[in-house]
């Protein structure tokens, strides 16, 4: 099995398939994190969230992040990262992160690193759909923070 698998897809997350193949014989820990659509945000009732992604770069960025985590917590760590696109209802899983490691500490740390970096670096966006028909693209992290470009 591949050591790092990162996918951005419209397909629902198949939990059985996601977990199978994550571990390794020498690994005694598998850490799973799931992100789901929440029914409220900043006091507004959320009916659904639409996820948009620039998939090729998003997957490349996720692989980079997993590689960084392996560099910090163990080159033998194994990763599965799936992120949904499209419109998701409340409670649906938007992201799944699986990390397998020899001991639990590394997989906890690496999993936390992956989700925090994903939120800051992966070219993925979400638009919330509120009660009453209003929608809003959520504000996030600018990818060009180190760039010196003129405002036009």
């Amino acid at each position: 099995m591949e050591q790092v698998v990162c996918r951005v897809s419209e397909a629902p997350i198949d939990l059985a398939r996601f977990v199978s193949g994550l571990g390794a014989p020498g690994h005694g820990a598998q850490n799973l994190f799931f992100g789901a659509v929440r029914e409220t945000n900043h006091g507004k009732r959320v009916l659904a969230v639409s996820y948009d992604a620039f998939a090729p770069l998003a997957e490349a960025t996720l692989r980079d992040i997993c590689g960084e985590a392996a560099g910090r917590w163990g080159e033998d760590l194994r990763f599965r990262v799936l992120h949904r696109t499209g419109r998701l209802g409340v409670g649906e899983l938007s992201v799944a992160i699986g990390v397998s490691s020899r001991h639990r500490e590394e997989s906890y740390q690496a999993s936390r690193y992956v989700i925090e970096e994903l939120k800051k670096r992966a070219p993925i966006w979400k638009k919330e759909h509120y009660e009453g028909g209003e929608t809003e693209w959520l504000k996030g992290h600018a990818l060009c923070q180190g760039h010196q470009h003129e405002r036009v």
Partner: protein
Amino acid sequence: MIQVKVELYGAFRNCGWTEREVDISLSGPVTVAELRRAFAERLGELAPGFSFERLLGDSAFANDTRLLEPNDRIEASCRLAILPPVCGG
């Protein structure tokens, strides 16, 4: 002549332009900084009611494998993306 297709993502999809990309014709090679100006001009024509100056200022150009720096050069026709601030998860 160089043709650059810029794919729109996130909040740029709400600009009012019905397509998911903007075509830009350039007379020759340009830097990404110059492409940014040409993109702003073209988007202003295509989506006149869309206030995008601040959004564009916080956005990065990218190809399939990496973010582009302002001094990177576009030497041939290609497909790029404009990436507003991200918020996955």
